């Protein structure tokens, strides 16, 4: 496995137990134009560094958790 995720409910677990939910994006507020919504839907930062992201512990507690992971080195700093 590439790294371990410290699930607050289940402890340090294999990432293949989780479903990856992608980077945390912030929905544009009400009244935002269509371009902002399209960017929110289709576009990603995709930065080789730390990013906040969602993971769903499908084979564990069944909770969505938010972690801060470096996607270039797989170092996780915050769960």
């Amino acid at each position, binding site marked *: 496995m590439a790294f371990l995720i410290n699930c607050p409910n289940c402890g340090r677990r294999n990432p293949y137990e989780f479903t990856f939910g992608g980077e945390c994006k912030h929905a544009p507020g009400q009244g935002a134009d269509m371009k902002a919504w399209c960017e929110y839907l289709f576009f*990603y930062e995709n930065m*080789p560094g730390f990013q906040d992201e969602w993971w769903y512990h499908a084979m564990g507690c069944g909770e969505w958790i938010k972690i801060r992971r470096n*996607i*270039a080195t*797989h170092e996780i700093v915050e769960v």
Partner: protein
Amino acid sequence: MATTHKLLQFKQPAKSYDVVIIGGGLHGLATAYYLARYHQVKRIAVLERRYIGYGGSGRNTEMVRSNKRAHETLPFYKESLAMWDGLSAELEWNLMVQKKGIIALAHSDPELAAMRMLSDSQRRAGIKIDMLSPDEIKKMVPSLDTSDRPALPIVGAQYHPEGGTVHHDAALWGYAKACGRLGVDICVGVEVTGIRIGEGRATGVDTNAGPIAAGKVHAAVGGYSSEIGRMIGMKFPVQTIPMQVMTTEVMKPFLDYYVASPRLHFYTQQTLKGDLILGGPLDAFQSWNSYTTWEESADRAFKIVEYFPDLAHVRVVRSWSGLCDCTGDSAPVMGGCGIDGLSLDIAWGYYGFKSTPASGKYSAEYIATDRMPEKIKPFALERFYNRQPVREIIL
């Protein structure tokens, strides 16, 4: 026999060029080749920060086929597949094009029905596709277990006779050598750190070898495309996800076709050398790290042994992974990005290798004429802003 003269001379970049291509992979080199050969562009540089073919060009599974469903993109893939045929002669370099045929297995009746639908779309676009029964499959691939034993038995297959393999390193060096003959400067170890923009127009690039002025800049950077986006303050609709591949030890020839299972996400072929290349799905999460994991390798091994039981004790000798920049609609991004003089050829996910000749041809046409060629119009970046992504059902 080793040759005594150099196949290719790498250059130091000059101060200015007509066209600067970022990325010395297959797409970048192909674009440079078609620009120099068919559009008579004289001063072209291909800048590569590591070595040519470091990224996806050297990490793919060498499969060429035309397997998409969306009707607007099928002519593009069909042309690309056909272009491989004459390429060895054109580049004067044996690309080892071997159109051995691809068998895509179906494991259930609904899947077979979906496959028939797919085949109909592809036939309408003029692509040769046949459906096979388990008995026919068994005759073509005797080592495949078509019995009821696997948990998901084989109920049929789609046969794509024009699909096959091309040696990716041969293709890379074929294009690189042809570029060298046409006077394209291929500069390795030159990393682009920024794109210069003046008055809404790309005017050059900053590199670790100093600034280079350019009439036009073209980005063909494979999995690293979001870095280009950050240089120009844009986001791209891509997530970078690795794909792992492994190969086995060399065996005597037993597998004449490329065998794939779209449902179980595995595919395998026996190369001319005799080793099996085992490919699979994209990894389960986003990453910029070329790692390989036990879980993915075990998954490939399990599936291959499930359908080829004779391979149970074959050893795996190597595994590697490559970065794929994937869009939500399984189609690439080509053409302009709103800045004059800067064109993109990115987001190829894991269907970049087979598209090399056509993407090079049409990228070159776009750069030379500033007009979007008809065949790549569906790939424009604007489709995401117009809420008109390519209606593709194949990942």
